[in-house]
C-alpha cells in the first residue's frame, strides 16, 4: 500500500467513463444472458435487485469515506478491477446455482438459490459503484464534469454493447466487458504510480482470458424448449447465430422427426414433412418445413385453425406478420394466396432459412409471388400504403411460455386496439384480419383478443361489431377473423364447413346459436362462446370486471396483452396448488411486484442504516436530510419514469425494439451528460436554484406535450426513411434529456458545498430510486398507462425543484 497515497489532482475522467460504460454494458448484457439461460422475467428480477449494489456502495462510501479518500488511487483501481473480475465470475457462479424458476412455488430451496444469485450479481455492481461514488466524494468541486463523464460513458456502453452483440457471442462480450473494467482500474493505477496494483490487474486479466471455454459456456435451463429438444435421441445443433435480437439455433434430427404442427386437427391423417427446428434464445420453436416444390407433403397446413381465412377468401393478397421459419408463407401459397408479403423481424432467421438451409426449405421467402420485408410487424403495417385481402398475425411465442404466463410483462404492440385498427385500415374491401393465439384454459388470450377486436372495430366506427367477427378453436389454438364489413351468409357457411371437417369448435359467428358451441373439444361449459357473447352484450364492462383474469383490451398506452393476472384470483389459485391449479397463475405480474418489494425493502434498509450510524458519529451532519432525501429520490424515480416511457414510445416509432432502445438510451444519456456539463456554469454562481427551476419547467412542458402529442404525430411520420426517423427521435430527445441531466449534478454540487459528507449518501439514494423507479414504472404503466407515468414524473420533478434550497439558506456552512 506504500504507493497508494498519491491522489491525482484531477478526477480520472477516462477511467470513470470507461468503468461506467462497462457497468451499463454489463447490465444490458446480463439481461441477454439470463434471457438465454432462463426466462426474461426472472432476468429482469435478478438484475433489478442486483443494481441495488449501486445504492449499497453509496452507503458503504458514506461510512468509510475517510480511509477510502486517503487511498483514492488504490481504492478506485481495486474496485474497478474487482468489478471486471467479478462481472465474469459472478455470472459463472450464478449459472452453477441450479436455480429453477418453474419450481419456485414447490421447492423452498429455490428461493435460497435465487437469493444467492442476487448476492452474486450484487458484487460487480457494488464494486463499480464504489469506484464511481468515491470519485464524486473525492472531487466535490468537479461534480458536474464527473457526472458528465459517468453518464457519457454509460451512453457509450449502451451503444457499445449493441455493436458488440452484433459482432461477437454473448459469452465473449462478457469477457470483453470484464477486461474493460480491469483496464479502467489499471489506467488509474498506472497514472497514480500504483504499479503493483496495475500488475495485479494485468495478471487478473490474463487469468480471465485463459479460463477454459467450457467454464464460460452458457448453461441454459434444462426446461427450456431447446434443451428439451436436444435431449431427444438424434438431435443436434446444425447452426447457431447470435445478435442483439437473440441467439438463433437450428436443430436437426434425422432419427426422430420434429413434426411441429401446433393446433393440428384430430381428423388430420397426414403428418408434417421433415422439419428443422428453429429456436430464439432457446425458446419459441418455429419449424422450417422441407419443401421441394410438391404441395402434398404440406397438406397438414390445411388442418390448422389458421387455415380458416383461405377457405373464406378467393386467392387473397396476403400479408404475413412474423413469418419466421416460413410455414405461414407455405400455408398461404398452398391454400391459394396469389401474392404473399412476409414480414420478419430477425434478418438472421431469414438468412438461415434462405441461404444456409435454402436447399432444404425451398427458400420460401423468394418463391414466386412472395416478397420478403425485414422489419418489425407493427411498424411495417403503419408505414405501408399497400392494401391486402388478408393480414395474418402468426403465432410467434411458445406455448409453454404462454401457458406459464411467462410473458406478462412484455410490452407488445402487435395486439393493441390501435394495432388492430391499423391492420383493419390496410384491408381491401371484404378483406380479413386473422389472428391465431394459443388456447389457455379457462380462456384468457382468446377472450382478450376478442375484446380487443371489438374495441378496434368500435374505434373505427363500426356500429355492429358482432357481425364483423368470427372465431374458432381447436384444442390448443384459436383463430379470430375480423372484417370491416359484416360477414356474409356464404362466408359463414364456409366457416361452418371448415370447422366441422376438422372438428374445430365455433366460438362465435354472427347469428350463431348457443347449441352450436362446445361440440368437439368439450369444456364443462361453453366458456368461449359465453365469453364472446358476454363481450358483445351491454354487460361487457361488468363481465370484464367479474372475470378472474385481466382481459381488458391492451392499448398502445398500456401494451400488456399478455398480462392476465388479478390480485383477486391469487388466493384462490394458491389454495388450488395441490390440485394442479398453479397453471392458473400468470407469473409476470407477481414477479414484478416481488421485485419491487425486494427493491424497496433493501433500499430502505441500506439508506436508513448508514444515515443512522453516521448521525451517531457526527450528530450535526444530518441537518436538512429530509430535503436531500426528497430531492435525490424524486430525481431518481422521475428520470427512470421518463426514460422508460419514451423508450416505449420510440420503440413504436422506430419499429425495432433493440435499435430503438440503443438509440433512445444513448441519446438520453448523451444529452443528459451534456446538460450536466453545461450545468457547471450555474453550480458555482448563486443561480443554481433558478437553473433548477427552469430545467424542471422545461422538462414538465416537454414531457407532457411529448406524451400527448407524439403518438398521433408518429402515426403520420411512420412512412419516413429510417435514418430520418432516428434523426428526428434524437432531436426530440435532446432538449428533454439536456434539462434532465442538469438537476442531479446541480443538487449534488450544492450538497458538496454544504454537507460534503452526505454526497455519497445522496448518490446512493439516487441509485436506489433509479432501481425502484424502473420497476415501479412498469407497475404503474400496467395499471394506469404510460401517460399517467409521465404525469407522475413531471410532478416529481416539480416537487424536487420546489424543494431545492435557497442560496445561502440555513445548512451546514461551506468548508
Amino acid at each position, binding site marked *: 500500500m506504500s504507493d497508494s497515497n498519491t491522489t491525482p489532482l484531477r478526477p480520472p475522467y477516462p477511467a470513470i467513463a470507461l468503468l461506467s460504460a462497462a457497468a451499463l454494458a454489463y447490465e444490458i448484457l446480463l439481461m441477454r444472458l439470463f434471457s438465454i439461460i432462463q426466462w426474461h422475467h426472472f432476468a429482469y428480477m435478478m438484475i433489478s435487485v442486483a443494481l441495488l449494489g449501486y445504492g449499497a456502495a453509496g452507503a458503504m462510501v458514506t461510512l468509510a469515506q475517510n480511509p477510502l479518500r486517503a487511498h483514492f488511487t488504490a481504492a478506485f483501481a481495486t474496485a474497478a478491477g474487482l468489478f471486471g473480475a467479478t462481472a465474469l465470475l459472478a455470472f459463472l457462479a450464478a449459472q452453477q446455482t441450479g436455480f429453477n424458476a418453474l419450481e419456485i412455488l414447490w*421447492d423452498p430451496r429455490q428461493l435460497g438459490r435465487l437469493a444467492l444469485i442476487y448476492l452474486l450479481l450484487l458484487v460487480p455492481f457494488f464494486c463499480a459503484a464504489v469506484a464511481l461514488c468515491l470519485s464524486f466524494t473525492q472531487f466535490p468541486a468537479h461534480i458536474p464534469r464527473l457526472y458528465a463523464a459517468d453518464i457519457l460513458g454509460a451512453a457509450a456502453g449502451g451503444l457499445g454493447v449493441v455493436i458488440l452483440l452484433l459482432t461477437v457471442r454473448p459469452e465473449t462480450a462478457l469477457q470483453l466487458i470484464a477486461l474493460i473494467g480491469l483496464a479502467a482500474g489499471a489506467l488509474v493505477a498506472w497514472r497514480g504510480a500504483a504499479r503493483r496494483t496495475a500488475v495485479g490487474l494485468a495478471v487478473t486479466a490474463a487469468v480471465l482470458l485463459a479460463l477454459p471455454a467450457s467454464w464460460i459456456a452458457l448453461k441454459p435451463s434444462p426446461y427450456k424448449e431447446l434443451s428439451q429438444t436436444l435431449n*431427444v435421441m438424434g438431435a443436434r445443433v446444425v447452426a447457431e447465430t447470435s445478435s442483439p435480437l437473440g441467439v438463433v439455433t437450428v436443430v436437426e434430427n434425422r432419427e426422430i422427426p420434429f413434426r411441429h404442427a401446433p393446433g393440428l386437427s384430430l381428423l388430420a391423417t*397426414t403428418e408434417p414433412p421433415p422439419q428443422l427446428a428453429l429456436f430464439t434464445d432457446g425458446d419459441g420453436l418455429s419449424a422450417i418445413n422441407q419443401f421441394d416444390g410438391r404441395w402434398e407433403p404440406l397438406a397438414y397446413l390445411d388442418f390448422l385453425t389458421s387455415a380458416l381465412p383461405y377457405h373464406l377468401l378467393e386467392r387473397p393478397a396476403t400479408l404475413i406478420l412474423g413469418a419466421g421459419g416460413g410455414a405461414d408463407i407455405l400455408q398461404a401459397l398452398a391454400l391459394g394466396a396469389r401474392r404473399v408479403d412476409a414480414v420478419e423481424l430477425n434478418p438472421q432467421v431469414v438468412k438461415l432459412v434462405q441461404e444456409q438451409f435454402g436447399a432444404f426449405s425451398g427458400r420460401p421467402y423468394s418463391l414466386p409471388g412472395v416478397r420478403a420485408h425485414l422489419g418489425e410487424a407493427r411498424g411495417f403495417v403503419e408505414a405501408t400504403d399497400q392494401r391486402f385481402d388478408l393480414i395474418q398475425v402468426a403465432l410467434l411465442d411458445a406455448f409453454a411460455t404462454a401457458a406459464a404466463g411467462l410473458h406478462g410483462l412484455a410490452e407488445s404492440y402487435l395486439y393493441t386496439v390501435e394495432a388492430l385498427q391499423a391492420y383493419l385500415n390496410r384491408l381491401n374491401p371484404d378483406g380479413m384480419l386473422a389472428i391465431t393465439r394459443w388456447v389457455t384454459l*379457462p380462456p384468457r388470450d382468446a377472450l382478450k383478443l376478442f375484446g380487443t377486436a371489438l374495441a378496434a372495430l368500435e374505434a373505427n366506427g363500426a356500429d355492429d361489431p358482432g357481425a364483423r367477427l368470427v372465431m374458432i378453436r381447436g384444442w390448443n389454438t384459436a383463430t379470430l377473423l375480423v372484417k370491416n364489413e359484416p360477414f356474409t351468409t356464404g362466408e359463414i357457411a364456409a366457416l361452418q364447413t371448415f370447422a366441422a371437417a376438422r372438428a374445430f369448435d365455433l366460438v362465435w359467428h354472427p347469428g350463431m346459436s348457443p347449441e352450436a358451441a362446445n361440440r368437439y373439444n368439450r369444456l364443462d361449459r361453453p366458456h368461449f362462446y359465453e365469453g364472446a357473447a358476454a363481450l358483445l352484450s351491454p354487460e361487457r364492462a361488468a363481465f370484464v370486471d*367479474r372475470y*378472474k383474469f385481466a382481459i381488458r383490451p391492451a392499448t398502445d398506452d398500456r401494451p400488456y396483452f399478455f398480462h392476465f393476472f388479478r390480485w383477486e384470483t391469487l388466493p384462490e389459485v394458491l389454495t388450488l396448488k395441490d*390440485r*394442479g*391449479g398453479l397453471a392458473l397463475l400468470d407469473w409476470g405480474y407477481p414477479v414484478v411486484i416481488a421485485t419491487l418489494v425486494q427493491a424497496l425493502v433493501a433500499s430502505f434498509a441500506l439508506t436508513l442504516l448508514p444515515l443512522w450510524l453516521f448521525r451517531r458519529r457526527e450528530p450535526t451532519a444530518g441537518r436538512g436530510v429530509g430535503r436531500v432525501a426528497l430531492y435525490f429520490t424524486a430525481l431518481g424515480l422521475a428520470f427512470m419514469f421518463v426514460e422508460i416511457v419514451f423508450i416505449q414510445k420510440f420503440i413504436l416509432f422506430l419499429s425495432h425494439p433493440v435499435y430503438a432502445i440503443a438509440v433512445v438510451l444513448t441519446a438520453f444519456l448523451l444529452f443528459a451528460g451534456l446538460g450536466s456539463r453545461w450545468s457547471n456554469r450555474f453550480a458555482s454562481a448563486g443561480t443554481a436554484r433558478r437553473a433548477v427551476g427552469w430545467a424542471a419547467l422545461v422538462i414538465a412542458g416537454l414531457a407532457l406535450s411529448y406524451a400527448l402529442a407524439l403518438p398521433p404525430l408518429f402515426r403520420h411520420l411512420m412512412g419516413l426513411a429510417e435514418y430520418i426517423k432516428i434523426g428526428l427521435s434524437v432531436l426530440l430527445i435532446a432538449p428533454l434529456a439536456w434539462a434532465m441531466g442538469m438537476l442531479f449534478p446541480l443538487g449534488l454540487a450544492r450538497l458538496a458545498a454544504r454537507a460534503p459528507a452526505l454526497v455519497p449518501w445522496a448518490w446512493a439514494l439516487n441509485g436506489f430510486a433509479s432501481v425502484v423507479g424502473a420497476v415501479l414504472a412498469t407497475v404503474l404503466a400496467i395499471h394506469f398507462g404510460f401517460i399517467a407515468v409521465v404525469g407522475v414524473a413531471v410532478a416529481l420533478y416539480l416537487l424536487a425543484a420546489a424543494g431545492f434550497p435557497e442560496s445561502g439558506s440555513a445548512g451546514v456552512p461551506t468548508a
Partner: protein
Amino acid sequence: MHFAPLIGLLLWLGATGGVLADEFAERRQQLSAEIAALARQTAVETGRREFDPQVMAALERTPRHRFVPAAQIPHAYANRPLPIGHGQTISQPYIVALMTDLIQPQPEHKVLEIGTGSGYQAAVLAELVEQVYTIEIIEPLAVQATKVLEDLDYANVQTRVGDGYYGWEDAGPFDAIMVTAAASHVPPPLIAQLKPGGRMVIPVGARFLTQHLLLVEKQEDGSLTTQQILPVRFVPLTGGPS
C-alpha cells in the same frame, strides 16, 4: 459371544430397514388419503366425485420413492412434481391419479404410454391392467426406468427406447393410451391404434405446470370426441354460474 455385537448390529439394521419401509408405506397412505380428499373437493368433468378405489389402491402400492433421484427421495411422497433429470419431471401425484382415473383402467386392459420418464406412471398402470407398453425418447431415462421396473418385478411392463409418434403397432390396438410427453398435436397413428371405446389422455402445459388434460374418446363407431379438463374446480367468473 463374539458374535453378539454383530448380531445386535444386524438386528438394529433390520429394524431400521423395517422402520424405513414402514415409513414409506405410511407416507404413501397419507399421500393417498390427501389425494382422495382433494378429489372429493374437486368435481372434475368426469362427473365423478372421487377417484376409482382401484386407482387409489394402486397409488398406495407403488413405491414412488424408487422412481425419483436420490436427492428427491425425501419429497417422494409430497404432492408435488419432482425433477428427474434430463429436463423431465415426474408429475404431481394428484395429476397422476387423475390421469389414471380418466382412462378408466380395467384388469384386462392393454395400455400404451408415450413418455416413460421415471417409469412411475407405468408402474401405477401395471398395478391396474394386464399389460403396459411404454416408450421413451430420451435414452438414459429409458435405461434407468427399465432397470427400476425390472428391480421391482413389474413383469407386465414392456419398455422401448425410441420414437413414440407411431405408437407400438405390433402390440396395438390399445384400450387406453397415455401421452405424458409434450406434443404439439395428437399423432394420427396413435388415434389409429386406439380401440373403439378406448380413451387417450394427454397433459397440456409447461413442465411443473399441467394446465389441463386432453381426453380423447373413440366411440364404438370410430368417431372421436375430446374433452379439455381442468384438474381443478375453477369458475372463471366471480359470482357467475357454478
